[in-house]
């Protein structure tokens, strides 16, 4: 199974770190889509088949919490694997994201940690072979 992945973060630098990690992970990847805020992210999810979404919390236009809330309101995306990747450190906010069925990765993170969580969330393991 090739994972079509959506990366939502207002920082181009953070999107490039996440995308590079995905590419180095050895996981079977499909298309990778990028969005700068929750609104753009939701639009991509409606238009494309997405298997995994990695989303930031603090973003302009629409933040990650609102994006995730709206996503879960739609039955179709109730079980979409979502990893929230954020520097958010307020326990209450993190708890809200977990209750919405997301897994949380705290920034800063190492690429190795990000990969471990992606494997755990998607159940897709990597095999290093051509």
């Amino acid at each position, binding site marked *: 199974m090739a994972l079509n992945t959506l990366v939502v973060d207002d920082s181009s*630098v953070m999107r490039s770190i996440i995308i590079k990690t995905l590419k180095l992970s050895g996981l079977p990847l499909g298309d990778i889509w990028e969005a700068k805020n929750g609104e753009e992210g939701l639009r991509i999810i409606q238009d494309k088949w997405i298997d995994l979404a990695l989303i930031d919390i603090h973003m302009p236009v629409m933040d990650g919490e609102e994006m995730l809330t709206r996503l879960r309101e739609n039955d179709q995306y109730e079980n979409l694997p979502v990893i929230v990747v954020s520097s*958010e450190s307020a326990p209450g906010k993190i708890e809200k994201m977990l209750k919405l069925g997301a897994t949380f990765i705290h920034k800063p993170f*190492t690429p190795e940690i990000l990969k471990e969580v992606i494997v755990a969330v998607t159940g897709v393991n990597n095999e290093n072979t051509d």
Partner: protein
Amino acid sequence: MKTQIEKVLIESTVRTFEDLCFMYQEPELKDAQKNLPLEAASEVKYRSDDFTGKLLIETRGGLSPAIATNILSNDDPSAQQKKDALGEIANIICGNIVPSLGGGGREYKIEPPRSLSKDDLLKEEGQEEPVAEITLNFNDGRVDIKLFVDGYSAAKEKKSD
């Protein structure tokens, strides 16, 4: 003597530089690192129910290009990439530190980072006193971080009256 908030600020900064920039803190500031000219600065504004303020980050001694080079694996990062990389570092440190203010745990919003010129910095200098201020050295350069809480200087003056 470091305050609790300065300790948290140091921890967050060291971890961010290690995990994302692959840089480790040098144990001591060398003399050459003490009088380096400013090369780049960025600020992130935050607000919670009780506090508003900003985190200001300044780099010296080649640290700004080194941050972008290491994160992006690009030996010749563009001016925009350097600004974005420093902004993201400021953003992450700010996100880590703000919930620790005033007993901790509170929710907050942060604005996207803003790159500052020397003129911008001069205009703002001395207007407020930082709640916490740290200097750390990485590679041959240096990073200075100041955390401001709006109204802190006024409250402090009032208290000492």
